[in-house]
């Protein structure tokens, strides 16, 4: 069923983060993404939820998608090489008339057996191995205390199919998809995940061809032919391997224009110049608005000339991101602040931190 072609898509994205760490049910995010029904076409929807497995928070929660049930034992054999499987269960689903045939979903709670220092690299390697070598099985999430739920259908239907109202998370991210040709494969839906990163994306990455080749240099192999996959891997490379802190992610992925760098004062100027020279292959081009979920927060980012919409909003301790303002108003009619993104801007929120409003404009507006 997996198709070997790339699928451009227009989409809806939404995210909710409770910065006090209070866990809320999936009901709100489903309502929020459902408002943007027109931005999807029923060919893909999905969610990432953080904080849903507190009782297993020190174990990797692998969500596996099986097109072929016969592959279960093969995957489990591979997993056992590096992990002890502490618990396996089918991910509960609810039959509905909106969602027809679907693959089998299972989740594994895994304890790593090897060297602590190599742990995350080993997990990445294992995900790459299963996804590229075992036909008919696909790891859709591989983080701790988080999980990705996705499939073919409108996002609100996918949310109910996975019974997300029964889960509680401090951060929810959602995606509704409008692919311009049908993938027919559940693994192609968003969010896209690796370790605890999850990415939802509205847009098309016109730099995909070089981003993919750039990542190969660092041992990341894109086997999904989707541009969202490269974003997830780039975030993992930059933040986990190269230690870029959140505020500087955009210096590589949505770098300032050379003319803006010229106008900077030292030492910023040299810093941004060096970043751009070094990370040219990581620059994301083309239209996008992205939400990146991670352990303890989420980040929104738009392309350098803002060819796709995104707004950020705050209400008390809750931070919201969405393609459209209506998605925020649906679940929080009153907002303390609402900020449309500017080109190349990142706005993020983290657990326990003071809210970060992004643009200075936001402060002056209050």
């Amino acid at each position, binding site marked *: 069923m997996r198709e070997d072609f790339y699928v451009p898509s227009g989409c809806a994205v939404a995210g909710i983060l409770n910065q006090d760490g209070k866990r809320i049910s999936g009901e709100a995010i489903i309502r929020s993404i459902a408002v943007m029904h027109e931005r999807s076409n029923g060919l893909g929807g999905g969610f990432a939820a953080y904080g849903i497995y507190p009782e297993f928070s020190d174990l990797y929660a692998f969500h596996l998608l099986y097109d072929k049930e016969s592959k279960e034992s093969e995957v489990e054999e591979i997993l056992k090489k590096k992990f002890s499987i502490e618990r396996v269960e089918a991910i509960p689903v609810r039959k509905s008339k909106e969602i027809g045939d679907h693959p089998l979903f299972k989740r594994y709670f895994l304890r790593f057996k090897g060297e602590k220092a190599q742990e995350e690299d080993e997990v990445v390697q294992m995900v790459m191995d299963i996804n590229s070598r075992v036909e008919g099985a696909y790891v859709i999430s591989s983080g701790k205390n988080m999980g990705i739920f996705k499939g073919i259908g409108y996002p609100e239907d996918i949310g109910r199919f996975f019974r997300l109202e029964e889960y509680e998370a401090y951060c929810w991210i959602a995606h509704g998809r409008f692919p311009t040709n049908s993938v027919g494969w559940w693994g192609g839906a968003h969010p896209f995940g690796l370790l605890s990163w999850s990415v939802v994306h509205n847009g098309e990455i*016109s730099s995909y061809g070089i981003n993919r*080749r750039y990542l190969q*240099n660092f041992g990341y192999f894109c086997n999904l032919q989707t541009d969202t996959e490269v974003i997830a891997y780039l975030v993992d490379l930059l933040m986990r391997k190269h230690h870029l802190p959140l505020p500087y992610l955009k210096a590589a992925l949505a770098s300032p224009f050379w003319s803006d760098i010229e106008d900077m004062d030292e030492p910023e100027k040299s810093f941004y110049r060096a970043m751009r020279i070094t990370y040219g*292959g990581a*620059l994301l081009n083309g239209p996008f608005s992205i939400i990146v979920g991670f352990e303890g927060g989420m980040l929104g980012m738009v392309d350098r000339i803002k060819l796709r919409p995104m707004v950020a909003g705050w209400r008390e301790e809750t931070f919201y991101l969405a393609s459209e303002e209506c998605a925020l108003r649906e679940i929080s009619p009153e907002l303390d602040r609402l900020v449309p993104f500017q080109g190349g801007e990142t706005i993020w929120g983290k657990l326990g931190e003071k809210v970060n409003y992004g643009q200075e404009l936001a402060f002056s507006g209050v």
Partner: protein
Amino acid sequence: MAKSLLFPEFKVVRDENRCIACQVCVRQCANDVHIYDEEDDQVYSQEETCVGCQRCVTLCPTRALEVTKKEAGMRPNANWSINHLRNLYKQAETGGVLLTGMGCSEDYPIYWDHLLLNASQVTNPSIDPLREPIEIKTFLGRKEEFLDTDWEEEPPVLKTQLAPQLELSVPIMFSAMSYGSISYNAFRSLAEAAQEIGTFCNSGEGGLHPDFYLFGGNIIVQVASGRFGVHPGYLRAAAAVEIKIGQGAKPGIGGHLPGEKVSPDVSRTRKIPVGSDAISPAPHHDIYSIEDLERLILAIKEATNYKKPVSVKIAAVHNVAAIASGVVRAGADIVAIDGIRGGTGAAPQVIRDNVGIPIELALAQVDERLRREGIRHRASLVIAGGIRSSSDIIKAIALGADAVYIGTAALVALGCHLCQKCYTGKCNWGIATQDPYLTKRLNPNIGKRRLVALLHAWSAEIKEMLGGMGVNALESLRGNREHLRAVGLSREEREILGVKAAGEGW
């Protein structure tokens, strides 16, 4: 001596009704094709020596002249072409190696013409360069894999120091063309244009005339096997140093500046006697292996205090990918690859037309090989060899080049008509000659203006094409072969190029 069996290549047609016997053609032709007969008050032509440079045609004030290819009257023969016959007659008469100039003119496939570019529709908006910035700035030099940075500071403090970089405002440089092979005025036009545009020209293997030290910030100096004009001041004056191992027009052999072109000024610049042939050896006599190249790269870096990128120029030959990998591992910051269609001031015709491979294939293989080995960032790739237009350039970038060198195209902008007689020193356009009567025909101010105009035009076209693809920074196209599709190529050629067939989607 017996009459030559060579027949004229060109036919000079003079419209007697238009000709006013003004003798412009007589004065313009360094090959003495046109002769004025005072008694008849008429101009006659002896076409045996005509090279088809079109100088007389262009300058004739009454448009009385036409120079066309002369059809030889022999019976057509697919095997024994006219060119073969001419060469046989020439060699039977002279007993020598046949020289020629400019790049290979044989009919080998030109892969640029089989590659098509992408554009955005609906799902991805195209970007309008008249309204949005489109960036084509390019940096050449070794790149870091990652930056060691103290992220605790605000702004973060870089602990990694970047390797020296050449900053290009356009991804286009002027190829190595030495003072000697080209005239002072031609060199000056290139240097001034490079400075105005914000790019680089290349000294070639000819040393640097004292007047050109001023432009050192925009000149890459070459160290070739003859070491003509190489001294510490020369290395220090330049923005970068290029070790020339090979040239696309003549892989495997050395350089040759015919004595006719070694004028007193050229002699001073090259440090060789006036009128002597400047023959550089085929290999560098201190480079017989990759380790030797590494020593020379290091020696040059030492001599320039590690402040300048060192480039290594090689010709595109069969095993070019592995060779380039070795060159990168030997410490080159830039690898310049020159394909079979690369130009020259003088080369044996048999070499020029038969040795080497097309640059497109070499580029695709080198880029892929370096990526597979995880060392692509350690050197920039500059390619050369028959780049004719902005579309060739953008396709080269999508295949994986960081920038291109243009030689012939720049000379054409200066007036070259590709007569391929550079080695005679009789260039009627004042480009590939040292004869003062001829060189003054090229005004360096006008030459510079024309080169600047060409690069402006190409930049604008590149931005249009980039914007159309929905890409607003050149680095997002570099090596991005998804934006290329092939027409009329075999599966094998497509695999070598790493490009899908037209009609295949993402």
